[in-house]
C-alpha cells in the first residue's frame, strides 16, 4: 500500500487536468472532479496512516538528472510525519471543496476556482511526500502561484489584486532565502535528500556559523510561507480571497507547509542550536504580537487571520524549544479547528452579507448550526479542555517551560490568555447580544446543507482530536522521547489565563457598550489600543522597506534602462533608418537607370581586370 503513496497527490493532479479539459462543459458539476479525487486520496492516505502506525515506512527514488559526476535523485518518502500530514491535508481539503460547492454556487469563475483549489492541494500533497528539497521546492512554488490566483479570485476589485500581489511578493522574500539555503546545502553535500542531508552536513565538521546560516535561510522560507513576524503582513490581506480559500490556506496547506518544512529538515536545525533558538524566538514573538492585534479587529475574518499567525507562532515556538512532536500536534489540531472556524465564519458571512462584527450580533437565533460549530472551534482555539487545542497548546507550553529560554513560555502563556479573550469577543459580537443592524438580521438565513455538513463533520475532530491522538501521536513521531518534565503550577497557568480571557471577554462584551468605550478612553488602554489598531506598525515598516529596498533601486535601474539601454537600442535603430533614408534615394524605380549603372559598373570592372592582369 505504501508504494501507492504517490497516488495521493496524483489523483487531485489528474482531477486538475480534468477540470482544465471538461470544466467549462461540466457547469457546476465540475466540482465533483476534485471532490471525488480528494475523497479517494483521503481513503488512501488513511490506509497509509494505518500501515505507518504499525511501523511501516518507505523511501524510494530514481535517478533523475546526471550533471558530470553528479547524480540527482527524485522520489517520495512516507514516514510517520508525512503519513499524518497526508491524512490531515486530504481530509480537510476534501471537506473544504464540498463546502465550496455551496459557498461558490453561482460564481462567475466556478470552474477556475475548483481547478486552482485542486492544484493547490495536489501541490501540498506533493510537498509532503517529496523525499528531497528540490521536488519540495517545486511543489512549494506551485502553492505560491495557486495562492496568488485564489486570493485574487475576484480580481474585478483592485484591492483583491493588491492583496494577491502582496501575498506573492512577501512570501517570495522567504522563497529566495529557502532557495539559497537549498543550494548552499547542496553545494556542500551534493544531495537534496531530506534523509541524507543532516547526516552529510553533520559529517563535514562545518563551522557553526555555516550551519546556522543554512538553517536560518531554510527557516526564512518557512517564515514567509507560515506568515511569521516580520513577514506576517501578507496573511491578513489574503482574506480578500473567497472564505473557503482562507480555510484552505490558513489551515491545511500553505501556512502548514512552512511548519512542515522546519519539521522535515529538523535534523539540520538540530545541528545548528543557535538557529533553532531563533526559530523559537520568532515563534514566540509571532504568537504574541498578532494575538494582541486580533483583539482590536472588527472584521471576523481578520480576527481569524491574526489568530492563525499566532497559532503558527506556537508551532514554531515548539520547534524552537525542541518539542518537535508538540509542534506537529498543534499543527494537526489547529488545521481542524481553524478550517472549521473559517468555514463557519464563511457561513456567517454568507448569511449576514457583511464581515464586520459590529454589524452582526444576535445571529444565534438565526444560525443555530453555524453558531454551535463556531463555538466548538472557538473553545478549541481558546484551549479550553477537553477541546483539541488545549492538549496541543499545553504540550507546547510545558516544553517551553522545560527549555532554557523561559521568556518563550511567558510569551506563549500570555498569548493563550489573549487568544481566549479575542475569540470570546468574536463569538459574543457575532452571535449574542442585541442585533445591531436590522437589515443584516433580516437578511440572515442558515446556509444550505452542503455547507453545514462539512462544518458538523469538522467540528468532531476539532472537539475530540486532541484528547484522542495526544498519546498515539507522540508514540508515532518520537517513540523514544522521555516524558515531559512536570511544570508544577506553571503547567496550569496557561489554562487559568485562558479561562480568565474568556471571562474578561464575556464581561466586557455582554455588558453595555458605554462601559467598553469608557475603558478605551482611559489613558492606560488608549496607547496600547492605538498600537494594536496600527498593527504594531508592521505594515508601515513593510512599506518603508519596500520603498527603500525595492522601489528606490528599481527607480534607478528603471532610469538606466530607459535612458541608457533604450537609448543605445533606439540609437542603433535611428542610425539604421537614417542610412536607409539615404539609400532609398538611389532606388528611383527607373529600370533604365539600373541598367545603366550595371553597364557602367561592368565596364569599370572589366577595365580594372585588364589593368590588373596586364
Amino acid at each position: 500500500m505504501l508504494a501507492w503513496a504517490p497516488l495521493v497527490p496524483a489523483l487531485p493532479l489528474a482531477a486538475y487536468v480534468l477540470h482544465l479539459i471538461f470544466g467549462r462543459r461540466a457547469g457546476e458539476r465540475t466540482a465533483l472532479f476534485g471532490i471525488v479525487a480528494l475523497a479517494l486520496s483521503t481513503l488512501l492516505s488513511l490506509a497509509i496512516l494505518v500501515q505507518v502506525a504499525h511501523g511501516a515506512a518507505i523511501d524510494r527514488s530514481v535517478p533523475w538528472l546526471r550533471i558530470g559526476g553528479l547524480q540527482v535523485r527524485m522520489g517520495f518518502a512516507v514516514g510517520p510525519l508525512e503519513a499524518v500530514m497526508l491524512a490531515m491535508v486530504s481530509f480537510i481539503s476534501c471537506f473544504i471543496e464540498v463546502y465550496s460547492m455551496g459557498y461558490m454556487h453561482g460564481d462567475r469563475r466556478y470552474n477556475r476556482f475548483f481547478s486552482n483549489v485542486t492544484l493547490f492541494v495536489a501541490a501540498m500533497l506533493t510537498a509532503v511526500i517529496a523525499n528531497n528539497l528540490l521536488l519540495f521546492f517545486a511543489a512549494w512554488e506551485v502553492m505560491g502561484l495557486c495562492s496568488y490566483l485564489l486570493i485574487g479570485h475576484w480580481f474585478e476589485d483592485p484591492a483583491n489584486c493588491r492583496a494577491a500581489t502582496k501575498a506573492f511578493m512577501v512570501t517570495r522574500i522567504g522563497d529566495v532565502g529557502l532557495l539559497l539555503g537549498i543550494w548552499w546545502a547542496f553545494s556542500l553535500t551534493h544531495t537534496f535528500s531530506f534523509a541524507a542531508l543532516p547526516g552529510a552536513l553533520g559529517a563535514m565538521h562545518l563551522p557553526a556559523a555555516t550551519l546556522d546560516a543554512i538553517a536560518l535561510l531554510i527557516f526564512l522560507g518557512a517564515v514567509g510561507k507560515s506568515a511569521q513576524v516580520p513577514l506576517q503582513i501578507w496573511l491578513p490581506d489574503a482574506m480578500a480571497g473567497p472564505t473557503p480559500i482562507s480555510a484552505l490556506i490558513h489551515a491545511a496547506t500553505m501556512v502548514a507547509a512552512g511548519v512542515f518544512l522546519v519539521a522535515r529538515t529538523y535534523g539540520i536545525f538540530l545541528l545548528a542550536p543557535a538557529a533553532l533558538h531563533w526559530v523559537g524566538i520568532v515563534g514566540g514573538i509571532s504568537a504574541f504580537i498578532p494575538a494582541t492585534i486580533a483583539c482590536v479587529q472588527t472584521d471576523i475574518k481578520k480576527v481569524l487571520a491574526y489568530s492563525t499567525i499566532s497559532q503558527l507562532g506556537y508551532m514554531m515556538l515548539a520547534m524552537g524549544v525542541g518539542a518537535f512532536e508538540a509542534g506537529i500536534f498543534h499543527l494537526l489540531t489547529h488545521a481542524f479547528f481553524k478550517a472549521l472556524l473559517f468555514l463557519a465564519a464563511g457561513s456567517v458571512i454568507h448569511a449576514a452579507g457583511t464581515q464586520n462584527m459590529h454589524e452582526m450580533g444576535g445571529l444565534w437565533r438565526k444560525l443555530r448550526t453555524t453558531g454551535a460549530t463556531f463555538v466548538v472551534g472557538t473553545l478549541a482555539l481558546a484551549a479550553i479542555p477537553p477541546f483539541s487545542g488545549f492538549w496541543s497548546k499545553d504540550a507546547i507550553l510545558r516544553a517551553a517551560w522545560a527549555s532554557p529560554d523561559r521568556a518563550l513560555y511567558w510569551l506563549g502563556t500570555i498569548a493563550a490568555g489573549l487568544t481566549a479573550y479575542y475569540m470570546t469577543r468574536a463569538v459574543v459580537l457575532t452571535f449574542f447580544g442585541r442585533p445591531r443592524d436590522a437589515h443584516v438580521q433580516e437578511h440572515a438565513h442558515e446556509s444550505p446543507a452542503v455547507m453545514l455538513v462539512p462544518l458538523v463533520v469538522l467540528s468532531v475532530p476539532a472537539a475530540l482530536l486532541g484528547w484522542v491522538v495526544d498519546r498515539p501521536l507522540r508514540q508515532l513521531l518520537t517513540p523514544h522521547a522521555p516524558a515531559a518534565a512536570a511544570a508544577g503550577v506553571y503547567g496550569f497557568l496557561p489554562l487559568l489565563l485562558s479561562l480568565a480571557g474568556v471571562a474578561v471577554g464575556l464581561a466586557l462584551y455582554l455588558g453595555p457598550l458605554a462601559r467598553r468605550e469608557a475603558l478605551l478612553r482611559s489613558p492606560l488602554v488608549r496607547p496600547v489600543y492605538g498600537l494594536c489598531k496600527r498593527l504594531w506598525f508592521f505594515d508601515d515598516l513593510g512599506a518603508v522597506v519596500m520603498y527603500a529596498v525595492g522601489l528606490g533601486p528599481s527607480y534607478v535601474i528603471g532610469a538606466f534602462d530607459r535612458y541608457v539601454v533604450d537609448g543605445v537600442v533606439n540609437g542603433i535603430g535611428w542610425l539604421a533608418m537614417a542610412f536607409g533614408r539615404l539609400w532609398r534615394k538611389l532606388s528611383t524605380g527607373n529600370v533604365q537607370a539600373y541598367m545603366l549603372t550595371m553597364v557602367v559598373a561592368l565596364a569599370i570592372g572589366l577595365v580594372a581586370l585588364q589593368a590588373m592582369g596586364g
Partner: protein
Amino acid sequence: MIAAQGIPLVAFLAVAAVLFCIGLFAALRRANAIMVLMGIELMLNAVNINLVAFSRYSAPADAARGQAFALFVLAVAAAEAAVGLALVIIVSRRRNTIEVDKIDTLRG
C-alpha cells in the same frame, strides 16, 4: 590565322561591336518599351556574330560549336521577345503607357 574570303576577323568583331553599342543605346535611352526590347535583340545578335566568327576562325571547320550556340541564342531570344511583348501589352493595358521612365512603382 586563316582569312575567309580575305575578310579579317577584326572586321566581324567591329561590326558586332557597333551593333552591340546601338542595341545598348536603344535599351538604355529609348523611352518606348518596344524599342528597349528591340535594343536587347540587337545586342543578342551582336553576340551571335561574335560567336559565329570566333567559331569560324579559331576551331576546326567541322566543329560548328559556335554556330550551334548562336542557334540556341536565337531560340532563347524568340522566347524572350514573346514574353517581353506580352509584358508590354499587359503594362500598356494597366497603366495606359509603355514609356519605361514613367513605370517607376518601385521608386524608394
